[in-house]
Structures are given as structure tokens and as C-alpha cells.
């Protein structure tokens, strides 16, 4: 055997300041009450930067800046000019993509292969796509005179920090709104770098405001009386709280929440491809994916074959340094998330499911969890019902297509689903019956700015991306 030779990406491309302020009205400013927190590298636990914590007064300042920019500059600006700013931003992201990818991997823990080849290209594409809409909104089929809503308050998660920012900011700006965005407290650094990109693009001050902080800061954004639109991506539990908080107001709300997607493999499926799809479905981004294929439904007749191939493939996954270009599975984003994954996995064992992980050396420092599957899972087990948001797959079986539908839909979630079969008519038959906002057939975890994304049921409401995603930011 050859010895393993890592291929680390250089982090020299990223220069970090020891501390960052809030980005309000086009400038980095200190928070009024002077609070701060640190953002760490989850792969090493080293501190990357100190980041300001925005209190209610800071949020108020940001909302006022956004309101002023909306009323005086961005709202009245012709769509074709808004488009040019967004095209500029898209181009700058393309130009600085390596720097942003490395920073994303440092702050989030995701493999550089993913931040470089998935996150960043999608971020740039999302801005490019929405730039084109800015002067074409009347053609979107949403009504004769679509109008912006005003100030959008946006709260995003830590799993795809910059991509979720793009999904929020690009459509909001294209449609003529201004934004106050709160990134997740464990991954604020690429959002702050994005603030610098706004400066580089000469975006008018106040159009984009970034307030860093934790749940309380997010709450202040959501509950601010002068916010016209709230967009949230995160857990279903927090989504419920936000829905309650905006109840009775005029705020328009869209929510992109949790999931427990079924990935359904039929006996006639191309099994090698299906196994790749299962792996991608649950281990992409350490399973920190709301649309992850976390429930594998395998037709009984091919169960043994699929499981053996899946285990063989899992043994080939390389877990470790996110900046190593060979790494498949990086670090768990935080100690808190690691604790949650451990707790649910222990519940899986306690409830009688069988746990398996390939032999896997994990680094001594940082937050790590080996790729794991549970077999013998029943529908009542917590690991089949609750979102684990980690590299943990629950395997169930079915005999008939009708049973597959029954089991796939037996969840309060409805974000995504996967279907693996060679039979086109069955794909379409099943897709009609799945209560999920995105259905992937013979592929999984595909994203494109032109393709609307969002959930049914308790996975939230509203769509992001595509023509439909514009509606979330328009008065039609």
C-alpha cells in the first residue's frame, strides 16, 4: 500500500482581521453595546476572528439604514441599474471564489472540494441569474405590476453560509428590496467578506446590512416593526417561533426549514449509481443539509446487495482536514451540533436499531463524527422521525410502490425526496404522490438558481430560486 499523501489547499489566500464590526449603512461599525463573540474553525477549534454581537439598538440602526436606502435609492432605481450592481457582485464573487471557498471551509468545516466546486459556483450563479430578473419582473407572470415589499429581515443557517446568503440577498435586491441579514453565529465570516464585496461593487450604502450575532439578534431582526418581509432558513422549531412572532403583522414570511427526506431505491435501479446517490444524499456537507436523503427506503429484493455496496463505498470515504482536497467528509460545524448528532445516534441504538460505521481515524481536535448507518430502523424510531442534521443514515425497506409512498410521506417534513429506478413512468407516478417540494430522480442534491427550492408541510413555505422564488419578495 502507498502511504496517504494529503493535498492541502493553501489558506494563504485568506487574510482575516482579528475582529470584525457590524456592516451597517455601507460601513463596518462597532456595536452600540460593545458585545462580541468568536468564530472558530470547527476542524481545529482555533479562533479565527472576533465578531461583533448586534443588540436590538444595532438592529434598529441597520433597519433604519435599510429603510432609508429603500426609500431614497434602491426602491426608485430603475431595474436595469439594480441589475448592473448584481452583475458586478456576481463577477466579483467569481473573481474571488478561491478566497471565499477557503474561508468557507475554515469557518464551516466543509471540505474544500465542496466549497470550491459546489457552494461558490452556485453563489455566483445565483447572483447572475437574479441580476437578469431585476429589469424583467413584469415578465415573471406574477401580475402586471410587481412591487418590492421594502425592508427584508433575513436569518440564515450555518450549513451553507454564503450560499444561503446568496439565496436571500440576490432575489431581495433584484426585486428592489433592501436587506438586514443575520448570518449564523458559528459561520459569520464569509458574510462579512460579502459586505466587503458590496463595498467593492460600490453598492449604495444601506442596501445590504449585515448584523452578526446569535438567536437574540435574529429575533430582533424578525420582530423589528419596520421590517416588511421576513425570510428564515433553519430549524422547524425556530421557524414555528418566527411564524408566531409575525402573526397579526403585515410582514410577509417565507420559511425554509428542516427535512427528513426519503431516498427510495427500487429493485430495477442502476444500483451502482444509486449507491453513489445515497452517499451523496446523506454524507454531502457532513449531512448538514436540510434536504439530505436521511431515510433510505430500499426495496426488499435488493436490500442485501445495496447494503453491502453501501458499506463498501462508505469505507472509502475520507474523513478529515476540510482543506485537504481529497477529503469527502469534513468537520461537524459546532460542539452543540456534534452533541445533538451523538444524542440521536445513541437513541437509535437504545431503540433497537443496529449501528455501523466504517473503520475511521478521526482527528484529535475539532468536532468529528464518522459516517454512520442504522439498519433495522422502524418508522417509530426517533432516528427515522427527527432531523439529525449529520452524517447518519437510517435504512428502512419496502415491498411495493404503494408502501414506498406510504413510508416516504410518513413524516411531518416535506422538503425533498429521491427516486431510483430505470422506469420513467414510475418516477413520474411516484413524484406525483410524494408530498415534497423537490423530487430528484436518479440523482440527488442538485441545485440551480433557475430551479425553485422549498418545502411542503413543516419543511416551511415559499420557494427560493427560479421564477417562483421572486414572489417571496414582491407585492403582486
Amino acid at each position, binding site marked *: 500500500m502507498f502511504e496517504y499523501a494529503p493535498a492541502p489547499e493553501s489558506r494563504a489566500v485568506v487574510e482575516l482581521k482579528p475582529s470584525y464590526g457590524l456592516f451597517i449603512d455601507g460601513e463596518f461599525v462597532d456595536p452600540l453595546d460593545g458585545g462580541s463573540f468568536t468564530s472558530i474553525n470547527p476542524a481545529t477549534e482555533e479562533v479565527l476572528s472576533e465578531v461583533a454581537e448586534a443588540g436590538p439598538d444595532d438592529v434598529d440602526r441597520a433597519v433604519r439604514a435599510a429603510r432609508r436606502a429603500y426609500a431614497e435609492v434602491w426602491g426608485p432605481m430603475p431595474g436595469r441599474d439594480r441589475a448592473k450592481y448584481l452583475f458586478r457582485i456576481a463577477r466579483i464573487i467569481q473573481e474571488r471564489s478561491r478566497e471565499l471557498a477557503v474561508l468557507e471551509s475554515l469557518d464551516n468545516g466543509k471540505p474544500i472540494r465542496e466549497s470550491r466546486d459546489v457552494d461558490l459556483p452556485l453563489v455566483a450563479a445565483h447572483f447572475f*441569474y437574479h441580476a*437578469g430578473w*431585476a429589469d424583467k419582473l413584469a415578465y415573471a407572470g406574477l401580475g402586471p405590476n410587481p412591487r418590492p415589499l421594502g425592508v427584508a429581515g433575513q436569518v440564515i443557517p450555518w450549513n451553507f453560509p454564503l450560499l444561503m446568503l446568496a439565496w436571500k440577498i440576490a432575489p431581495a435586491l433584484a426585486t428592489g428590496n433592501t436587506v438586514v441579514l443575520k448570518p449564523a453565529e458559528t459561520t459569520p465570516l464569509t458574510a462579512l467578506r460579502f459586505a466587503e464585496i458590496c463595498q467593492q461593487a460600490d453598492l449604495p450604502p444601506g442596501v445590504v446590512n449585515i448584523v452578526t450575532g446569535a438567536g437574540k439578534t435574529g429575533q430582533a431582526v424578525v420582530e423589528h416593526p419596520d421590517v416588511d418581509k421576513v425570510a428564515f432558513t433553519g430549524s422547524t422549531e425556530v421557524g414555528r417561533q418566527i411564524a408566531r412572532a409575525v402573526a397579526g403583522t403585515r410582514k410577509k414570511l417565507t420559511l425554509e426549514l428542516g427535512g427528513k427526506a426519503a431516498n427510495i431505491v427500487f429493485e430495477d435501479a442502476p444500483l451502482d449509481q444509486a449507491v453513489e446517490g445515497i452517499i451523496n444524499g446523506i454524507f454531502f456537507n457532513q449531512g448538514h443539509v436540510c434536504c439530505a436523503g436521511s431515510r433510505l427506503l430500499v426495496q426488499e429484493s435488493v436490500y442485501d446487495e445495496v447494503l453491502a455496496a453501501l458499506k463498501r463505498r462508505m469505507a472509502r470515504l475520507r474523513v478529515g482536514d476540510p482543506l485537504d482536497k481529497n477529503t469527502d467528509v469534513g468537520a461537524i460545524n459546532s460542539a452543540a451540533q456534534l452533541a445533538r448528532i451523538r444524542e440521536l445516534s445513541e437513541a437509535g441504538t437504545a431503540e433497537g436499531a443496529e449501528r455501523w460505521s466504517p473503520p475511521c481515524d478521526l482527528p484529535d481536535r475539532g468536532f468529528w463524527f464518522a459516517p454512520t448507518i442504522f439498519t433495522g430502523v422502524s418508522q417509530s424510531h426517533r432516528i427515522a422521525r427527527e432531523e439529525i442534521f449529520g452524517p447518519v443514515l437510517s435504512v428502512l425497506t419496502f415491498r411495493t410502490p404503494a408502501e414506498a409512498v406510504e413510508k416516504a410521506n410518513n413524516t411531518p417534513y416535506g422538503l425533498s425526496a429521491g427516486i431510483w429506478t430505470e422506469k420513467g*413512468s414510475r418516477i413520474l407516478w411516484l413524484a406525483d404522490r410524494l408530498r415534497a417540494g423537490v423530487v430528484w430522480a436518479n440523482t440527488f442534491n442538485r441545485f440551480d438558481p433557475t430551479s425553485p427550492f422549498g418545502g411542503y408541510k413543516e419543511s416551511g413555505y415559499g420557494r427560493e430560486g427560479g421564477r417562483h422564488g421572486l414572489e417571496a419578495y414582491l407585492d403582486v
Partner: protein
Amino acid sequence: MSERVAVRKTYKLFIGGKFPRSESGRSYPVQNTNVSLASRKDVRDAVQAARAAVAGWSGATAYNRGQVLYRVAEMLEGRRDQFVGLGVPTVEVDEAIDRWVWYAGWADKIAQVYGNANPVAGPYFNLSAPEPTGVVGVVAPAEPALLGLVSVVAPTIVTGNTVVVLVAETAPLPAVTLAEVLATSDLPGGVVNLLTGRPAETAPWLAGHMDVNALDLTGVTDPGFAAELERAAAGNLKRVLRPPAGPVDWYADPGLGRMTAFLETKTVWHPKGI
């Protein structure tokens, strides 16, 4: 010291991404410059180049085509002074740049507003989506020289068509300069082919060419000539965009018509069932 003697530019055709002279060896003077006078053979060469480019260009992702068109806008912005120097008003140059940006944005959106799922009364998936027609022959308007040309070329190629453009006899210089912009914009060779000369001479060959799929007669001002070209186009049932009925406001929102004129709609059926 004597004044520097300027190096003058040779204005040539633009075919297959290259700048050849007319195979006929002919030229005609415009603004004290000799401009290539394209022949029937040049039309054929241009059609061949346009056809060869169809597979690659229509097969590129819409995202890619959008970025290439945006790149054209970037390059045009950098060469504003050249067009102004040729007598194109600044406001027209600005609008021409913005027109590229406008159409760049349409690349990955036209299917979303011009295609749709059809709720047929049966267990079938049924989806209609636009596809490019293929090679489009264009008789470009003489005025406004740059904006008119851009306004007929950009909507035709953004959807994946390739074009052979007969530039108006009186306005070749901005067209050849635009070709130099296109040549430096990552646009694959052959997607846009520009022939200077006399459309009165070359248009009938283009209209009758059996490997051309559609014809845009926007620049034809003589109704009798337009009718003659339309009749020639009927030989292989080219899609024909007739000359505008009245004056055109080239500065207005161009709408979708120039894109949809050169799109086919493909409807796919597939059964649904276990």
C-alpha cells in the same frame, strides 16, 4: 518633427470567428474607407460557418450563453470611444451596451416564461419548452446603426440560434467594429457572422438558402423586395419575421417577440404509472 502617420484599419467580413476579405475581392467606399463587398459565395461560407456553430452554441447551458452575452456588454463598454469616433451617438452606444445586458439575463429565463407544464387530461407528464430554430438569416436595419444591429442580433443568438447578418449598405463601420467586440467576448466562432456590402444583392441568396431556418427582414425597407424575399424563404418554410409596419422605437423595452420569433416549441409526453 513630422506628425505621426496613422495606421488605418482594414474593414473586413466576419465569418466563422475570422475576418476574411470578400472572396470576390470587391470593396466599396464608406466614410473614406474601403469596405468589403460580400458576394453570393460569402453568403454560402457564412451559412456554413453558422451551421457548424449551431451544435455547440445551442448545446451550451443557458447560464453559459448568458455569461457570454454579458461579456459582450463588458467588452463593448470598453470600446465606447471607438463607436463614438465612428459617429454613433453616446446615448446609442449606452443603450446598445444595456441591450446586451438585457438579453444576457434572458438566456436562462426565456424557457421559464415561454415554456410550461401542460395539465393534459390523462396520466401523462407533458412539458413544453422552447428550442432554437437553428441558423437565422438577418437583414439588419440601417438606423440606428449600432443599436439596431445589436437589437436584432442579441435576441436571436441568446436562445441558441446562430446568425448570418447582412449589414446595411450605409452603416458597415460600426458593424465591423462590433464584430471585433464579439471576437474578443468568448463567443464561439460562427455564432455571429457579419457580411458588409449590398443586401439588395446578397439577401435573395440568403433567403433562398436551403440550410437557413429563419429569416429576419427587419432591415428591408422596400415592401416589394421584402415580399420577394419572403417568397424565396418559403422554399424550405423558413420562419420569417417581416419588416416592422411602422417606425420602431429602438430605445423602448424590446419585449419577447424577437426571441420567440426564432424559437421552436418542443412538447414532451411521458406516461405516469407504476
